[in-house]
């Protein structure tokens, strides 16, 4: 698989004195599901709006589906976007929103949109101004996928939703993946629930991609070493202290090879090794 669908190089963006992106390199291949892990305010939303051609970058380049963001808006028709805070015209009904959007997207599939309304249990006649957060999220999902985009950008698609709505959205996502060929970039604070879907996790820190890991690596080769330390030790690369102030300490270890090497250190000889949960791995990656 060497079919690049997205590539950014040295992307920079500042708002006044505040530099949000400081040379961001990101690439995605067709069919990949990439999770962007970043703290609040790390620039995920700025990245998405540059990719969507809604905000112009100050420097660097981006190429998406063979196009460059040039202010023409052509890219928007090829991308499905679920914003963090979906907003539609309050006076419209769900059906009116979908009919309104249909006029802007060449490949809009109304049958698919209505089918999704039924599957997600969204009443077409309900008015946007009266919608719950869950129903707004459903409408945003339908609006983002009804034109069968090849690239989906999802900004916190499940945050603040109840279990059932979240389930609907995740199933919708899996459905899109089953159709094949879809590339998905998703930013989520609580990446744990997405763990089984991701191919790769990219950590966004200080305005750049600080690390990129295969999801299977994090699932299969992240360990927790619990050990009683009498004196401070220097930690090799790939080993991160997880806190625990007293003699009993927890460490995260990334990579089986690193683990084997750590075990040779006499200080770690009696360490108890257990798998590090995906959620905890993400926490370490964020905090590192």
């Amino acid at each position, binding site marked *: 698989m060497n079919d690049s669908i997205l590539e950014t190089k040295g992307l920079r963006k500042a708002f006044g004195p505040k530099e949000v992106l400081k040379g961001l390199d990101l690439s995605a291949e067709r*069919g990949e*599901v990439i999770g962007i892990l970043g703290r609040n305010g790390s620039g995920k939303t700025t990245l998405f709006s540059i990719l969507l051609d809604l905000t112009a970058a100050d420097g660097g380049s981006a190429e998406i589906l063979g196009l460059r963001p040039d202010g023409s808006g052509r890219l928007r028709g090829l991308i499905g976007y679920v914003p963090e805070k979906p907003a539609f015209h309050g006076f419209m009904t769900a059906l009116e929103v979908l009919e309104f959007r249909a006029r802007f997207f060449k490949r809009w599939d109304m049958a698919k949109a209505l089918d999704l309304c039924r599957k997600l249990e969204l009443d077409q006649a309900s008015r946007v101004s009266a919608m719950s957060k869950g129903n707004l999220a459903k409408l945003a999902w339908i609006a983002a996928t009804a034109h069968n985009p090849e690239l989906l950008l999802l900004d916190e698609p499940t945050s603040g939703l109840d279990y059932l709505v979240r389930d609907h959205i*995740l*199933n919708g996502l*899996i*459905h899109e*993946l*089953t159709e094949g060929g879809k590339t998905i970039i998703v930013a989520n604070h609580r990446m*744990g*629930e997405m*763990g*089984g*879907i*991701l*191919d790769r996790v990219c950590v966004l820190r200080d305005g750049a991609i600080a690390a990129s890991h295969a999801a*299977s690596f994090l*699932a*299969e*080769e992240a360990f927790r070493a619990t050990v009683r330390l009498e004196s401070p030790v220097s930690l090799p690369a790939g080993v991160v202290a997880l806190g625990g102030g007293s003699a009993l300490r927890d460490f995260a270890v990334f990579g089986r090879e690193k683990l084997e090497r750590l075990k040779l250190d006499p200080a770690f000889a009696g360490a108890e090794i257990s*798998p590090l*949960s*995906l959620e905890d791995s993400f926490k370490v990656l964020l905090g590192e």
Partner: protein
Amino acid sequence: MITLNQNSQTPIYDQIKLGLKGLVKKGLLKPGDAAPSIRKMASDLKVNPNTVARAYRELTAEGFFESLRGQENIISPRAGSLAEHAARRVSESLETALKGAMESGFSWTEVEKMIAALKRKLL
């Protein structure tokens, strides 16, 4: 139907394969039955359909699924013996682990306590 352990170091696709074999061993799936479609399985487990597809591909290659075209995901007559084989491997590794426990100086009572604790954790 199948429970995944997201914190396990066993890859998800392997867990899916083991899970399906387990269902055959328990008699919940029989030769000729259709296993859940890739989409259904992916939605139920909240995993990438590619992961399920990989498990299904390997199961087809192993002969657990029928390999006839248009018969994807149909449990083959050979599935039962494959499931038994997988189960035997588990009992062998359990034996190895127990031998190791004995050699490390655990008593039977301690081992039984460990097993009881594991049972509480897993069930």
